[in-house]
């Protein structure tokens, strides 16, 4: 679990311009309806990958939170989901939320429960996503945008 302010290896603009064909789900977020679409697509993909109902719901909720953050703060962005297959470990769903919005100055503060800059919000979205998923990384630069990369592995039964 890491969250870094700026990572030298990650180019925010390059992630934002990732080609759609690299992903199983690629959705542009620009309107409120897009949040529901992203959530629905994520749910479907997770179901097809054989995740349990609880995990499907967690993944759908995480996507919903990320998409809503994009819509609220950056106005526009992308949600990209990739299914990675590993014979030994089983399928792994990677979700990338990317925007060219205002960026986050105080990442540690944003990751704190109850902190929000939005009036009608509980301020538990991002930290909630971290708790819902297995891996979580956030990269942000003020004026350039934000990238959240998070993933969940299918548990063995």
């Amino acid at each position, binding site marked *: 679990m890491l969250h870094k302010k700026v990572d030298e290896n990650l180019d925010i603009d390059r992630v934002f311009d990732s080609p759609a064909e690299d992903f199983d789900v690629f959705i542009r977020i620009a309107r*409120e*309806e897009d*949040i*529901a679409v992203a*959530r629905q697509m994520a749910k479907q993909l997770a179901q097809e990958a054989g995740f349990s*109902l*609880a995990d*499907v*719901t*967690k993944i*759908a*909720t995480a996507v*919903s*939170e990320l998409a*809503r953050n994009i819509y609220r703060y950056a106005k526009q962005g992308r949600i990209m989901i990739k299914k990675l297959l590993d014979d030994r470990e089983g399928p792994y769903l990677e979700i990338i939320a990317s925007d060219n919005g205002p960026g986050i100055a105080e990442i540690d503060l944003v990751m704190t*429960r109850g902190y929000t800059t939005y009036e*009608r*919000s*509980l301020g*538990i*979205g991002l*930290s*909630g996503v971290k*708790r*819902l998923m297995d891996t979580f990384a956030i990269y942000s630069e003020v004026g350039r945008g934000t990238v959240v990369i998070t993933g969940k592995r299918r548990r063995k039964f």
Partner: protein
Amino acid sequence: MNSNGAVNRVEEMVQELAADSRLQGLWRNFLTAALADNKEKKQVEQLKDSLSLLFEEIGEQAFTAGLRAMAAKNPSLPVTDLLCTVIQVCGEIRRENEQTINNLRQMLPELATPIIRIWTDMLLVALIGNLDSHWAQNIAERLLDRVSAARAKVVLVDVTGVPMIDTAVGGFLIEMFSAIRFLGTDVILTGIKPEVAHTLVKLGVDFRMVTIARDLEDALRKGIAIVTGEKKKRRQLAWVMTGDKESESGEEIDI
């Protein structure tokens, strides 16, 4: 006139494009309008009409295939002009669809969330589907109005039909519950599915401000208990005020 030759060949092209006489008619109308020389407003309208009819009938794939075949055989066909018109027509169709979707969306909350008076002083609202902010606002307003008008003591909120509760939906529910409690009305929440419960705990959404019931039956029982409890209290108060355990007529006193 360059396109005159093409006009003469309309019939020939129509035969090539479709076998069905109805489709032939549609293509004929479209081609005649497309090849007309004077592009006045009326003509353009005619072209648009015939085009949208054709679209509806055969779909864009068959249409593009037809157009491609025609353009290959008839270089005189004003493809650029046609394309512009096609794009305009598509835009209009899209706008119309968006309008329809918007209208439907506005209708949806009314249709999907009836507020039912299920018992004396008790209302039931069953929330269904994914709640977006407009919808949520609409439900909250209607429910508050209804609670206030009906002077309900208890509101049962059933979320069995809500597949997922994220922080936005959770926040909306908390706001709505708080507002209802400000009216002096108790809220009983029911229908949280196990997977949703797990997600809520992970997210840290807290519904502790309201009573939570296992299922609708339990919710109804709890609600009735509250309503009866309140009635009992009123009777006791009436007894204290009149100083008489039973009225002369034998009826229960209530205030």
